[in-house]
């Protein structure tokens, strides 16, 4: 050993990346890009099968209907990156929507009503986070409990009745657009970009991945893993609240209905996006592509006139196939 060898000449150069042709032969390459390749395949299949699938109008409609799922999937991606899971995300969205609707019905200005809905959802997320991080209750149990509690609270508060929210600002959010891109799509895109920056360009993001990858190791290095866990559930709650605004604007009403499909699809989108349920391996682009894939799949089946009953079956098959492929992830 030659002591302090820090001259530029001794700095090792990283190996060059393998050429693309080599990488394509490796099944790990396909696993890493599963969501993108799946989306491309679905676009090709439905594009050929249905002439209206790839029209501008249908693409716009698909993006708008994917917006809520994208926002939820970004929240879920943060939680799953820490090797947690948020089973309450869709019912917290419902809870936020009901609070929004009731505040609006009580005469609050729409901006305050929306803020109230987001705060209510954020509070539910904070309770999840506190119980997981400080109470040391398993995430599965905590968020399953919150799934039930938030749905129940939404039913109690609303007495099981939908509340109409007919407001020009929310209507614009649902139907307005910049060129062909709807406002709700822009909201989802901003959430995705911010999520990506936070996960990969901040200290907090590295600590999220470290907590998911090796919680004990991260703790030994002084990472405050309890705080990290608390914050990811809080992020999930805030994004569920934001999704609630999009949901209410789209329906024109706050409904206390349980949105189980959103929960399952949010988790499916994250898994399709290559985020390991064991934590440590995070992505935002992947879950966003996963959400687009699931929306395109549902949309394509509808365009082909296939019964709605087949949609959950198709989603299930796609998710399980993707999970099989993930085993080969590098």
């Amino acid at each position: 050993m030659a002591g302090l060898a820090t001259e530029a000449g001794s700095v090792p150069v990283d190996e060059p990346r393998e050429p693309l042709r080599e990488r394509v032969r490796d099944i790990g390459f396909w696993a890493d890009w599963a969501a993108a390749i799946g989306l491309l395949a679905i676009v090709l299949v439905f594009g050929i099968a249905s002439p209206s699938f790839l029209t501008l109008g249908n693409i716009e409609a698909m993006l708008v209907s994917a917006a809520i799922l994208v926002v939820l999937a970004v929240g879920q991606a943060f939680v799953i990156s820490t090797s947690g899971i948020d089973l309450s995300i869709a019912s917290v969205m419902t809870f936020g929507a009901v609070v929004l609707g009731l505040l609006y019905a009580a005469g609050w200005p729409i901006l305050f009503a929306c803020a109230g809905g987001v705060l209510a959802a954020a509070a539910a997320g904070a309770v999840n986070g506190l119980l997981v991080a400080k109470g040391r209750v398993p995430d599965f149990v905590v968020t399953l409990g919150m799934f039930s509690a938030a749905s129940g609270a939404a039913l109690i508060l609303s007495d099981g009745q939908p509340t109409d929210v007919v407001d020009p600002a929310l209507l614009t959010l649902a139907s307005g657009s910049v060129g062909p891109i709807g406002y709700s799509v822009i909201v989802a895109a901003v959430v995705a970009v911010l999520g990506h920056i936070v996960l990969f360009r901040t200290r907090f993001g590295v600590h999220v991945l470290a907590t998911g990858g090796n919680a004990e190791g991260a703790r030994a290095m002084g990472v405050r893993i309890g705080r990290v866990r608390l914050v990811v559930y809080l992020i999930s709650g805030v994004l569920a609240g934001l999704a609630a605004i999009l949901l209410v604007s789209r329906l024109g009403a706050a409904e206390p209905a349980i949105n189980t499909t959103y929960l399952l699809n949010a988790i499916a989108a994250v898994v399709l996006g290559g985020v390991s349920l064991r934590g440590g391996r995070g992505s935002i682009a992947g879950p966003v592509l996963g959400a687009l894939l699931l929306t395109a799949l549902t949309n394509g089946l509808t365009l082909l006139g296939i019964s709605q009953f087949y949609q959950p079956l198709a989603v299930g098959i796609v998710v399980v196939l993707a999970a099989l492929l993930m085993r080969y992830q590098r």
Partner: protein
Amino acid sequence: MTGPTSPISQDVLLGVEQLSKSFGNVRALRDISLWLPRGQITALVGDNGAGKSTLVRVLSGVHQPDHGRVTFAGQPVRFADPQAARLAGIETVHQNLALVDELTVWQNLFLNRELVRRLGPFAVLDRGAMQVKAREMLARLSVNVPPVRAKVQRLSGGQRQAVAIARAAGWGSKLVIMDEPTAALGVQETARVEELIAGLRAEGMTILLISHNFEQVLRLADRVWVLRSGALAGGRLTTETTGEELVGLVTGAIAG
């Protein structure tokens, strides 16, 4: 107590005086007094359950002693947590290495010490600067250098150990504690890690080496302390002892 004669105080980086630690009725450490000379490799040996891990945990701030004194760089110290020990300049390479497999080498080197750039109210990671500095930290090792952008899960056992040691030695630390650094390694990788440890000593680092391997202790260390059933069984200069004598001290066949 037999052993090396007590040194002049300025040559001692870390001193332990009559340290005791109990867990319930179990007396894990009993009246331990020893010292680590500055710039040398000191080994700590003993059978399983002899108290090596407990002593390491006290020195690295995981546990607090019940009685006794620890002095570091001439000052009495009491570490409330591992972060406090780290701030004082004591880094520990745990047996499980505390590396995150899914992160890259540079991300692990900078874990919880990330460099950021200010962009208005926001702080974003300075990835470029961290990668450059990571290469410098690893180049110091000069053997077995892993690529900084590789994920840790792609590295060999020896390379992982090298990353963990580089991280411990790379932050202006004064003392690096290594818990069984070669326990999980093959012959070649063990030789490379030993070369790395000897290189750190040549740079003037003080090292506390916990090892089961007496040949390794005699090869690498300057001094060795032997623990038996939570008490100090003896201390020797490695030039003045043999593997047989160390075995005797560990098992109790030779009274301390």
